[in-house]
């Protein structure tokens, strides 16, 4: 069948040789009706598909408001040992939203790495979530180590990995002092040099290329 199209196709159907064309027509009635029906169908489909997609993917982009929680007064945390404290990570779901945090006072002799750690953390609050796959770690005072029961990850006093499969140090929480109270805020992650990053999940390394391979997410940003 000979191809009627050429490079300089006229926009008038009459010139294009379409049967039933009238003078000045640029689109046939059939094509117009078909296009309108398709458009209406697309609007109808989008009207239930887009909210459903938004519902499914919305939480990925939602950022939780920063919450600060009082955990004790400034006299009850030593600077060479950790006190386990329970905080609420996610409100409104009862026990499932709570987690343990190990808190001690900032010690200038020990906390010498990473210049910007201390400005947001007058108290060091170490997360109990292991950086391997997320089991809760336990502080053992006698050996000054955090030990993970699941796969044998071991961390030192500063939360840096000294043994086992974890890929980065333990996460920390922002802290601040309000009057005589110590408050714990959102979580943040650190790399092996204890440089601050937005909170990541367990198993995601942050050294070198790791911080780009496992990017920061819209729902979890550092302060």
């Amino acid at each position, binding site marked *: 069948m000979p191809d009627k199209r050429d490079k300089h196709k006229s926009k008038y159907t009459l010139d294009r040789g379409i049967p039933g064309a009238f003078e000045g027509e640029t689109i046939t009635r059939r094509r117009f009706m078909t296009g309108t029906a398709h458009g209406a169908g697309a609007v109808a489909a989008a009207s239930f598909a887009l909210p459903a997609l938004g519902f499914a993917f919305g939480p990925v982009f939602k950022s939780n408001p920063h919450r600060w929680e009082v955990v004790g007064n400034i006299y009850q945390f030593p600077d060479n040992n950790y006190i386990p404290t329970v905080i609420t990570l996610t409100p409104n779901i009862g026990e499932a939203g709570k987690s343990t945090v190990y808190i001690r006072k900032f010690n200038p002799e020990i906390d010498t790495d990473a210049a910007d750690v201390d400005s947001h953390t007058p108290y060091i609050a170490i997360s109990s979530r292991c950086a391997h*796959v997320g*089991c809760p770690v336990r502080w053992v005072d006698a050996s000054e180590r955090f030990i993970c029961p699941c796969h044998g990850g071991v961390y030192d006093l500063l939360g840096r990995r000294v043994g086992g499969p974890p890929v980065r140090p333990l996460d920390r929480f922002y802290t601040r002092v309000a009057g005589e109270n110590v408050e714990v805020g959102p979580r943040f992650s650190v790399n092996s040099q204890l440089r601050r990053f937005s909170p990541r*999940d367990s198993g995601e390394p942050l050294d070198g290329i790791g911080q780009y391979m496992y990017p920061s997410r819209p729902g979890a940003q550092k302060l």
Partner: protein
Amino acid sequence: MPKLPAPPLPASLKTPPPRPGHGNGNSGPLEDAKLAGVTVVDWVDERTSLSGAARWLMFRKVPRGTNWFYTLGSATMFAFLSQAVTGVFLAMYYRPDPAGGAYESIRYVTNDVFLGQFVRGMHKWGSSVMVVLVFLHMGRTFFFGAYKYPRELNWVIGVVLLILTMMMSFTGYLLPFDQRAYWATIVGVNINGTGPLVGPYLSDFMRGGSEFGATTLSRFYAIHMLLIPGLLAALLGAHLYLVAKLGTTAPPWTKATQRHELHETEV
């Protein structure tokens, strides 16, 4: 003395002729029940033509050498049906509430509901049974070469069914919301997050946020109850249709029988 024939009776007093099947030892309520059943089936069949499809599905030819390994697929399907039925009964009691209601509802089913422990146990162990059977069925199909032309699409559908089964196991594991369920889900979602570039976003999508929260349990429940069972049922239908249409293969050790006249004769 010869008997004279009986005088003709009026029609209303004549004994009625025997019904078909009656009069030769086949009479009574059992025969009536059978007839009633056949009538019902005929009524449906006349309006749907389903008996042809049923015969096509059930009275298929199978190759010589078909053995017990070929039952693994049906066994998987029956495990799935058992899961579906026990799952429906569990769903009548389960509450997807992360603030304690989920754990409490499962405790209630296990301890206080009549046969609740049995139904819950069937569901829990049935999931392991189904996973084992699905792998055995996949192994049988692979080692018997039953994935080759023209059955490639069936193999692909089977792989998708395998992935859906794994997802059912993963989402269902969280639902009792005890310590084991909670931490296993934390670990599982974190393992997902170790995939480069998209891992963190995938974790966020699964959890419904950057932290494990209230939406996580609801999401998992909806996926476990509605989304994946629907997909499983649809793909299972396609899988079974293809098996019936294409037929099963003979085991790989079966030699093809040859016709005598095609044999070369010894010279």
